[in-house]
Structure formats: structure tokens, C-alpha cells
């Protein structure tokens, strides 16, 4: 399972088509992957497991999200006032 994910990450080109977000508005696609990355990290490190599978979400949100949005959210996370639920 983790090999499969490693394979996918190694052959990563760009964020693939996501059927949950088929339309023009990709805002939620970017935000959801950002949330999923941090939730995945939090969940796996809480169980002392390797957080490598979470890298997929990171690659996707890095591809999709504008740099300024990511910087703002990272600052909010550090300051503890990020509005989303992680």
C-alpha cells in the first residue's frame, strides 16, 4: 500500500483530475488537499506511524494552491488561528 503511494509520488507530474472537483472552480480542491495533508500528518504522527503517505496531499496542494495562500495558512497554523479543523 505504501509502495503504491511511493510509486505514485515518484511518478508525480502534476495534480491529476479529481472527480470530486470536476468544474471550473478549483478553490475547494486546493483547500481540501491542504487540510488533508495536515490532518494526515496529525493522525499518523499521533499513532507513531510513518507520515510518508501524506506527501501525496502535499504535492497536490503545492501544485494547486497559490504560494501566497499557502504562506498565509502556514502562518495562521503557526500562530494557532487557522480557521479550518485539523
Amino acid at each position, binding site marked *: 500500500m505504501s509502495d503504491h503511494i511511493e510509486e505514485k509520488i515518484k511518478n*508525480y*507530474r*502534476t*495534480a*491529476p*483530475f479529481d472527480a470530486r472537483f*470536476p468544474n*471550473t*472552480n*478549483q*478553490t475547494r*480542491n*486546493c483547500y481540501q488537499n491542504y487540510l488533508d495533508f495536515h490532518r494526515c500528518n496529525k493522525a499518523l504522527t499521533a499513532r507513531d506511524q510513518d507520515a510518508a503517505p501524506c506527501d501525496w496531499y502535499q*504535492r497536490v496542494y*503545492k*501544485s*494547486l*494552491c*497559490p*504560494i*501566497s495562500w499557502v504562506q498565509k495558512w502556514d502562518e495562521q497554523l503557526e500562530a494557532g488561528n487557522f480557521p479550518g479543523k485539523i
Partner: protein
Amino acid sequence: MAHPSQLGFQDAASPVMEELLHFHDHALMIVFLISTLVLYIIVAMVSTKLTNKYILDSQEIEVIWTILPAFILILIALPSLRILYLMDEINDPHLTIKAMGHQWYWSYEYTDYEDLGFDSYMLPTQDLAPGQFRLLEADHRMVIPVESPIRVLVSAEDVLHSWAVPSLGVKMDAVPGRLNQTAFIASRPGVFYGQCSEICGANHSFMPIVVEAVPLQYFEKWSSLMLEDT
């Protein structure tokens, strides 16, 4: 790019734009034919000395001039819907680029592998070299590999803008807080120009878009050079 006294579209640089161009030719030809017919009938009516007072109705002609327009409309609708669905197909992009609109410049972000970002300002007219295009050239072009499906995510950092490149058949509004997706394939190498297409303040006419399509090796060289510079 656009030419002085240009009448038609710019030469297509993507398969979708080619289709749009051909459809436009098809629809316009129908429009010309109908207009010519109507103009002829008007001139004929106005310039005849004959007066006919005795024909009041005719079932046959009524059928003809109902069925024929319906048929012509179907002839327009079928290619139109074909292109609509073609443009809506699911893409499998090779590269994602973010185009962010600012007052008054575009910035492009290539973050699939490394964090490459740069601004693209219009070249002022006094700084143009001979042969360069006034109000269209930019200091940094958005370079893309030719014949690869590209996904462009368009957004804005302040007010509404719109990212448009006519020869690629692309226009997408840049809305602050929203990420709008568009996709295209550049079928040939070249430089393609566009201009901001949503009023955004004093220099709305002075924030052009320049897309440069190059073979993949040159794109890879360009992106490593750009990463070193920034």
C-alpha cells in the same frame, strides 16, 4: 497577435481555437446567406411596379418558411454543441501553472516540483527594441512546453482581472479568493499575446499576457535558469 485593420480571429495556436474558428466561419456563412436573401427580397419589393391584391394566404409557403429556418438552426446547433462538449472534456494535464492577477501585472507560479514564481510586467514603450510590439510585450514570458496539456489556475490578489490569450482560445476571470481552472494545448511553438480582459483600474490596458511555447528540452532549461535567478 492582432494586426492593424484585422477582420477575423488571430491564427489558432490550439486545437480548440481551430474548432472555434471553423465554427465561426460556418455560422457566419449562414448569416451572410440569410442576410443576402433578405436584402435581395427587400430591394425586389421596393423596386417593383407590380401590385398584387388578391393572394391572402398560402399553406405551402408557410410550411417552407417554418421548416427551413428550423433546419438551419439545427445546422448551427449541432457543431456548436459538439465544440461545447469538446471543451468540457476531462483533461489530464502534464503541468499546472498559476496565473495571479495584480494591479497591474501578472505573476506566474510553477510549483509542481520546485517553487518557481516570477512577475510579468509590461515593457514600457520607451524600452522596446525595434520589432517588439507596443503594449503587448512583457519582461518575463509564461513559458510552456509545446504539445503538452497545460492546466492554468487563474486567480487575483486584489481586484478582478481576466487572463486571456485569443490565439489559444482561452479566457478566464481572475477572482480574488477563487481558483478558476482552464486548460489548453499549444499545437505549435511560438509566442502568443493577450491582454487583461476585466477592468481593474488605471493600468488595466497595460498588463499584457505573453505565452511562449517551446520544445520540452528548452522548457526544462528555461525553468532551471529561472530557478537559479530567483
